[in-house]
């Protein structure tokens, strides 16, 4: 590959990064807005928010993107810049997935916490801001991590609409070189590295958020032979056995992530 072609790919990577960042920001805003509305006390608000979530979770991101690119201009004679149309499509779709995460995390906060807020006569906004969200936030990060990697993978779809992202650049390089194995291998590696960076960043964020409310990072439970017997002994004995040191031989579960 020549340097000119690499430059093309680099520009594509930059577009991919921008798309990921902007769409994630929109998705985050949408997720919080609709996730919170989903826990509203009026049923009609919950219902409407639920409609939005189900529609966007139900349809395919690519079909929705086609709709924004081809149908929206025809129906309303109003066309968005391709880049922003892509951000809108990705943000709204993944925001709907995120909204369910937000709702789940908010509902998982111990009810006594909300009751304490009521007892202190906090307004609903104060309850959310000062009690519920700070405690729910660390629980949201691992699913958000998965979603943002899904979103990164989703950004490749915009190449079909002619936005010059990494996948688009790869296609141009393929046409220029008449050879596809090399460039597509590189492209896959580029996306893998980007996903790795996102997931490391989210891991760090999770550690920080959990430390903020005084909880340690969860280690994936190591399953060891012999632990079952020790669990039974624990029940008989009535004393807690530290599962980390219970086993005789560690069984590798093959990587945690």
């Amino acid at each position, binding site marked *: 590959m020549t340097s000119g072609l690499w430059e093309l790919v680099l520009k594509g990577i930059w577009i991919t990064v921008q798309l990921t960042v902007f769409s994630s920001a929109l998705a985050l805003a949408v997720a919080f807005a609709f996730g919170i509305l989903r826990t509203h006390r009026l049923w009609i608000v919950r219902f409407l928010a639920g409609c939005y979530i*189900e529609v966007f979770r139900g349809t395919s991101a690519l079909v929705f993107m086609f709709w924004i690119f081809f149908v929206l201009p025809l129906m309303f004679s109003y066309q968005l810049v391709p880049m922003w149309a892509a951000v809108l499509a990705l943000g709204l779709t993944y925001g709907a997935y995120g909204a369910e995460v937000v709702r789940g995390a908010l509902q998982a906060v111990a009810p006594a916490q909300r009751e304490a807020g009521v007892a202190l006569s906090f307004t609903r906004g104060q309850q959310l801001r000062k009690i519920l969200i700070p405690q729910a936030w660390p629980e949201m990060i691992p699913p958000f991590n998965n979603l943002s990697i899904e979103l990164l*993978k989703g950004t490749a779809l915009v190449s079909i609409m002619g936005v010059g992202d990494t996948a688009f650049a790869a296609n141009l390089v393929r046409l220029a070189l008449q050879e596809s194995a090399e460039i597509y291998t590189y492209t896959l590696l580029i*996306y*893998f590295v980007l996903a790795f960076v996102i997931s490391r960043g989210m891991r760090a964020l999770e550690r920080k958020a959990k430390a903020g409310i005084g909880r340690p990072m969860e280690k994936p*439970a190591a399953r060891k032979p012999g632990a079952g017997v020790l669990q039974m002994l624990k029940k008989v004995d009535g004393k807690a056995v530290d599962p980390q040191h219970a086993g005789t031989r560690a*069984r590798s579960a*093959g*990587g945690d992530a």
Partner: protein
Amino acid sequence: MEWDWSAVDDFMPEFWDGVLTTLQVLALGSLISFGLGLVWAMALRARTRFITWPVALINEFIRNTPLLIQLFFFFFVLPEWDVQFSTLTTGVLAIGLHYSTYTAQVYRAGIDGVPVGQWEAATALNLPRGRTWFAVILPQAIRRVIPALGNYVISMLKDTPMLAVIGVLEMLQRARQQGAETFQFVEPITVVGVAFILIAYPASVLMRFLERRLVQQ
């Protein structure tokens, strides 16, 4: 812009053919992903790291890279290596392989959920490894993960439109063709979008029902 019902009527025959192709892709892709995912999950529990590490790496790689690029890879690179498949086969293989890395995680969670005592009981009864897997562990693990597998079938359904880019004539590709022929894009694409909701929403309700029935017992 007016909504034209006659354009919808014109699209209907094409649309049903597209639905059929989509469902075909979905069924075959699910079969591949269920089978291959189980192989991955069992390989991840192998006793030697010479198996677990490469399998984990391959899984991570496939799961964290876009299906679209994988489709292009299969579509453009395989012919360079003198492997010729039809577009439908290429699409089914790519989507099946991609989702097998998700189902592997689901199976893994299911296998991890089987109490350790079951493994020990199998060892105590001197069961061979194959019997341990197929007679003791998997029957308990798979029952619990059926709803989760179903959810991945639904997300696979929503990824089938990607096969349009390599020319598989599923719903979206039929809509694009219809639009290119008649210059009416609005109706076909909207019909396809609504069709996805009409298929995916009842399916996800069904999965929630299954989850209540199968998991919480």
